[in-house]
């Protein structure tokens, strides 16, 4: 379902891009937008795994079990956007956060106390977004709702600094931005705030089964338009 949503979003974006009416009817008042803020990416479950031994009959006999997850964490977020048309903005966005990798060990057959082993991961993302400002904007000029989709590269550095996991991510979601002031000094054309919520899909990276992991991500930022 998520992939379908992304494709649909992308197609609609292309259709909108090719319609000259937007660009000609309402030329962009600003070309460039810089934003900085915080982004929280939610917990990603990494599954359960038993430490099995083999019996003489070839069956599995668990010595202990583990349940793993990459915890949610807030980090910093920065982006640069370029307005393509009245409704569309292309962005480059990067984030940095330090989520905790947790491996909860339990059910040890020799009675070891349950333990949650932890490790701090340094997580970097860099990618591109396409932001579509919805036509609903006309109803409330101060608030601009938008849909957003994108993807990019994921890099996760383990505690020791000697092991790196890499992968990719995709996201789709929506949010709202509002201008706090328009015009201004030093060539700025406005200052505002933006908030969004996304479905954040990680592929590979710290993913014990190699599959995709979906979690919720939310962010808030301050931006300046030039």
């Amino acid at each position, binding site marked *: 379902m998520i992939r379908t949503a992304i494709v649909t979003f992308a197609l609609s974006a292309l259709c909108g891009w090719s319609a000259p009416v937007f660009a000609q009817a309402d030329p962009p008042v600003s070309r460039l937008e810089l934003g900085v803020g915080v982004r929280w990416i939610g917990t990603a479950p*990494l599954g359960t*795994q*038993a*430490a*099995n*031994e*083999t*019996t*003489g*009959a*070839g069956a599995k*006999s668990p*010595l*202990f079990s*583990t349940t*793993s997850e990459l915890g949610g964490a807030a980090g910093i977020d920065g982006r640069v956007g370029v307005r393509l048309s009245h409704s569309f903005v292309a962005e480059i966005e990067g984030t940095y956060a330090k989520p905790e*990798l*947790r*491996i909860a*060990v339990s059910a*040890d*057959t*020799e*009675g*070891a*106390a349950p*333990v*949650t*082993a*932890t*490790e701090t991961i340094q997580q970097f993302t860099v990618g591109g977004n396409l932001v579509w400002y919805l036509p609903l904007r006309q109803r409330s000029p101060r608030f601009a709702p938008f849909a957003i989709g994108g993807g990019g590269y994921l890099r996760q550095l*383990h*505690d*020791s600094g*000697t*092991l790196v996991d890499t992968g990719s991510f995709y996201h789709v979601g929506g949010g709202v931005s509002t201008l706090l002031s328009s015009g201004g000094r030093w060539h700025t054309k406005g200052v505002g705030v933006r908030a969004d919520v996304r479905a954040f899909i990680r592929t590979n990276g*710290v993913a*014990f*089964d*190699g599959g995709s992991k979906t979690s919720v991500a939310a962010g808030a930022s301050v931006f300046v338009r030039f």
Partner: protein
Amino acid sequence: MKRAFTALLIASLVLGHSAPAHAYLKFGVPIRGQQVTVKWAQTPVRYFVSDTGVPGVSAVDFQNAVGRAFATWQAVPTASITYQLAGVTSALPGSDDGSSVLGFRSRPDLDRVLASTSFLVDSTTGALIESDIFFNSAFQWSTAAAGETGRYDLESIALHEIGHFSGLGHSALGETEMISTGGRRVLSAEAVMFPIAFAPGSIAARTLKADDIAGISDLYPDGDFQTTDGSLSGSVTKDGQPLFGAHVVAFNPATGTMVAGFTLNAQGQFSIGGLSPGPYAVRVEPLDDADIDSFFSSAQTVDIDFRVAFFDRVVAVPKGGDSGQIALKVVHK
């Protein structure tokens, strides 16, 4: 205790081990004050098979089963060791003639020994010169594809002995229980090199496990094994004192595999090699008291008075490197 004879041999070779060993145990001999790993210097390693069968296993059956076991070790993609059948011989295993021979011998006096491996080692280099494996014909044997009730699977036992033949010691990745007739029964194991055999009829030990693969790859690394795999090392202490003989297990939650090692020196240090890069959970446990002779000389004081515990940190094993020293602390039982 599958092979008291083997165990004694292992104990004598492990005696004086002063350096942490990768994977479970590798055989070592002291040469000029240095602990040297025992291994074959050249491959393919040539071996002869005996021309004598036993009831239920013809000489040809024996040769085929042993050949399959050699092929299983040789198929490990990250290890370079290869073996070659040199021929059939009427010689018996155990004679120091420079030829490695595998065959049956009747040793009813060794009533708990299914098979054993003996070595001839170059005392100046640690290189193996000869390694013989005898299978005790006092037991009932089978080479049936699906195993045979009441008979030990020759291929499984050969796989274990060929691990010794190649220079590997025992692994402690297994659980046992006491049996009323004496000795112990294996409940489960996750290494072909576990020192106690499954019950007759089982063929579960025909497949190498992660611990076996790590061990043979560490001993005979192939290609870029040393740059693609990593190691996990550290020390174990109890009440602030180094602990000797602790069994340390590295568990990979991505693959579900376990590879283990021991603390093998006065500093309580261990090093587990041949690990796929990634995050690991680490468990430390005492050896079963009945197993100690399979791993260590009676002259060595192995501490088994501590509780099983897990390390409270996830340990990252890098590609081609070491995790860095971790400090495991355990408490009295």
